């Protein structure tokens, strides 16, 4: 390999841009493929902040406590060495972003300010108003633009990654992609390819995700032999505003800044919420979780809200919805700290949340699972070894994954404000890993015989030509809605095996109906239906992985909740003091504290389980009450 090699990064969100920056900084050439101008990537939607135990609040916070909160928050399903590496790198990452010009909120002394977030008792979340993701993405976008101006980075915006180019030995030596405007299909030779393609929110139809988050790239990589891990772990965010086109996120920072969740004590109370006195309000999170109150982890808050509405029938007006109330906080404070979300509520609902309590309900938000990646631990620190080519590598040689697209950092449930961190950290170690991998190869991808590229290109040209001729009765967007409806109904907050079975059957039915799709558009410019029909198949593949993985995991853990297989409530407040319960917990843990491994086959995903090493922290019951 020459000193300066060429790499491809797919996706222009935080993970992709940080991977790109690391490669460009080391002197390499990077092609960035993105469905949209990278500045419009989904990272822009993250609101609340980024975690790092900087400990400037005199609370004795430390990266090791961050590690513990994260591993416990994910109910010990996360990959431990990467979590440790991430939490220890976090303060440095926040400082780096600060140096890049992120407009973080400040204390009167001019230092970075930190707020509370879920699943921790410390002020650990740096923030820029309530549009932190936007601010972080812009900072990285600006750095990449600088490299672009220097000629080290070439952006291919409005290009969609279709699949890999492999050599005979199965090593990835490039990609095939389509220009979503001219519909040109071409190959991109690369020493290594990184999928930083985000999550699969649109598999669920409506979610808090951007409409570009179909998971298509991960779905395709899965079909090409990449392992998809922990697919069943889908985070449903406690607080979103339901909408026809999407579920709009109301950041956890609303509760971090003092927002309270409640319903009227009287079922179906029709009074204006402001006329309901304190004594007639049921602050159900504060009552049940006196320590964490409204800042319990997301899976816990989501389940409580869901049960208050569905099981107890105490939702506002008898419907799905609870109050998220900030009316007791001065408007000036709200505007300084969470104006972004206040405005979203105002614009899309029409009420001013500074005056009227917001009405919210849980909405699909994030995938903890993703492409399986490996790490090489430094035996001294038990963190990912610096510069190892193993870090963030999938099981396909030369294919890497970073950001939400990988499975590693969040286990069974992600803590708020850990996703921006994992995106950036995975890019920081993923970029150097790709460079190290390239260095270890005797033959450069660029020197590989043309036949590999030619055959991959003609495969995709044929596939697109075939799809373009599809003129059956099925509307691809209609099929996607059916997929989204059943995934949301059966694969989110509460899961039952009979319904999951039906979901898998339904997905298989949708797959067969996919063959009768009408492509709707025969145009040669910006033919979105054509690319979407291809994406839809990959979405169905991922949906099947998620539903099958959920069906086969007979326990409750983090975001995966099956009432039929849940442990009973312990008899005492501290479960470790209930030996009978501890015995049950231990038995369950030994059986299920494993990574779900999904491999592709024509008959549907093949599921197996992998032991999780615990060199950093021994598992313990996860308990917040």
């Amino acid at each position, binding site marked *: 390999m020459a000193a300066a090699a060429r790499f491809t990064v797919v996706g222009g969100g935080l993970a992709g841009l940080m991977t790109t920056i690391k490669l460009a900084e080391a002197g390499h050439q990077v092609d960035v493929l993105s469905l949209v101008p990278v500045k*419009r990537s989904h990272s822009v939607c993250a609101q609340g902040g980024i975690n790092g135990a900087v400990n400037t609040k005199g609370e004795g916070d430390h990266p090791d406590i961050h590690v513990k909160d994260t591993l416990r928050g994910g109910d010990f399903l996360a990959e431990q060495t990467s979590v440790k590496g991430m939490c220890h790198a976090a303060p440095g990452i926040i400082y780096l972003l600060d140096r890049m010009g992120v407009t973080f909120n400040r*204390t009167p002394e001019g230092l970075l300010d930190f707020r509370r977030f879920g699943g921790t008792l410390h002020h650990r979340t740096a923030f*820029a108003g309530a549009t932190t993701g*936007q601010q972080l993405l812009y900072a990285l976008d*600006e750095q990449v633009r*600088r490299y672009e101006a220097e000629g080290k980075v070439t952006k291919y915006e409005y290009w969609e990654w279709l699949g890999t180019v492999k050599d005979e030995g199965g090593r990835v030596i490039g990609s095939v992609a389509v220009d979503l405007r001219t519909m040109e299909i071409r190959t991109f030779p690369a020493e290594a390819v990184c999928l930083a393609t985000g999550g699969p929110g649109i598999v669920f139809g409506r979610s808090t995700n*951007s409409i570009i988050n179909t998971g298509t790239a991960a779905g395709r990589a899965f079909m090409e032999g990449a392992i998809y891990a922990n697919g069943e772990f889908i985070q449903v965010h406690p607080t979103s505003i339901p909408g026809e086109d999407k579920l709009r996120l109301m950041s956890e920072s609303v509760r971090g800044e003092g927002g309270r969740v409640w319903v009227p004590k009287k079922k179906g109370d029709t009074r204006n919420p402001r006329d309901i006195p304190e004594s007639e309000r049921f602050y159900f999170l504060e009552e049940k979780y006196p320590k964490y109150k409204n800042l319990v982890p997301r899976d816990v808050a989501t389940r409580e809200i869901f049960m208050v509405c569905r099981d107890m029938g105490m939702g506002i007006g008898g419907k799905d919805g609870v109050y998220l109330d900030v009316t007791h906080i001065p408007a000036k404070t709200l505007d300084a700290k969470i104006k972004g979300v206040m405005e979203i509520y105002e614009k899309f609902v029409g009420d001013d949340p500074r005056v009227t309590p917001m009405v919210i309900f849980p909405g699909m938000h994030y995938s903890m699972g993703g492409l399986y990646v490996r790490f090489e631990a430094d035996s001294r620190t038990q963190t990912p070894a610096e510069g190892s080519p193993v870090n963030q590598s999938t099981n396909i040689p030369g294919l890497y994954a970073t950001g939400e697209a990988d499975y590693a950092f969040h286990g069974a449930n992600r803590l708020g404000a850990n996703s921006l961190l994992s995106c950036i950290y995975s890019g920081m170690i993923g970029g150097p890993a790709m460079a190290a991998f390239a260095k270890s190869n005797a033959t450069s991808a660029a020197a590989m015989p043309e036949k590999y590229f030619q055959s991959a290109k003609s495969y995709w040209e044929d596939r697109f030509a075939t799809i373009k001729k599809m003129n059956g009765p099925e509307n691809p*967007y209609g099929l996607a809605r059916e997929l989204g409806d059943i995934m949301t109904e059966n694969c989110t907050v509460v899961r039952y095996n009979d319904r999951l079975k039906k979901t898998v059957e339904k997905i298989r039915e949708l797959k067969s109906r996919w063959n009768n799709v009408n492509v709707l558009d025969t145009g040669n410019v910006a033919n979105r239906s054509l690319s979407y029909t291809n994406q839809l198949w990959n979405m169905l593949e991922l949906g099947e992985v998620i539903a099958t993985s959920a069906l086969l995991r007979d326990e409750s853990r983090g975001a995966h909740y099956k009432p039929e297989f849940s442990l009973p409530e312990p008899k005492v407040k501290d479960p470790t003091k209930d030996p009978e319960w501890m015995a049950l917990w231990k038995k369950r843990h030994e059986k299920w504290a494993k990574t779900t491994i999904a491999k592709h086959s024509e008959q549907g995903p093949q599921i197996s389980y992998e032991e999780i090493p615990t060199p950093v922290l021994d598992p313990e019951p996860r308990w917040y009450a």
Partner: protein
Amino acid sequence: MDTAQATAVTTRTITFRIWRQDDPNKPGHFDEFKVPYTKGANVISCLMEIQRNPVTVEGKKVAPVIWDAACLEEVCGSCAMNINGRVRMACSALVDKLEQPITLEPMSKFPVVRDLSVDRERMFDALKRVKGWIPVDGTHNLGPGPRQSPKDQSVMYVLSTCITCGSCLEACPQVSQDNNFIGAAAISQARLFNMNPTGKLQSEERVRALMGPGGIQDCGKAQNCVKVCPKEIPLTTSIAVMNREVTKLLIKDIFFQEEEQKSHGGPG
């Protein structure tokens, strides 16, 4: 859903007139669509409905409308278009607040890609022109950046919420597809980076980028930009601030030229 409800939903409809253009070089036309009414619907949710049933009021099957969108919460900047003759973000354009038929047209200051989708590359080029970044020494750990006052942060934060949607360029009488006026968004970004304690170190380069053809002096002070900005960024203030910077630099240039001439003039 029972039948009574189903009838109630289908009887009330929303009418759209949507600009169709298959190719940047082909002439365009309007298609009219009727979409079932739903409470809380916005322009994007209706366009999605058209995707699921792309049939015009005349019963003609057509290709689904092409438009740009991603986040649907007014933070990605994708979906700016002309709605009933006014540029705005389609995701936050609630149907209940719009007069019908709702007319959708692409922005006119950018080349059309197809239908409502346009090419805003000039905006990203403008960010390169003003060197809209902080040139950090590297991504290695160098500790925190300089301290900043909450007051400065609050000004910079608002400037940095620009979503590059193009509304300010669309509303500006000085911007056209054939000229290279840099526009309010990039001028405001130059101000942002010049306010940053580290960005200040390169402030002269950014100010120079705003001088010359297509620069800040092409602003006609119509003040349309600030009125249409969906993020309510004080764009005209940014233009005024940067105008002052340009003037200061011009004066400095003249002064230095004179100084230089004197020093090169030899003993008088």
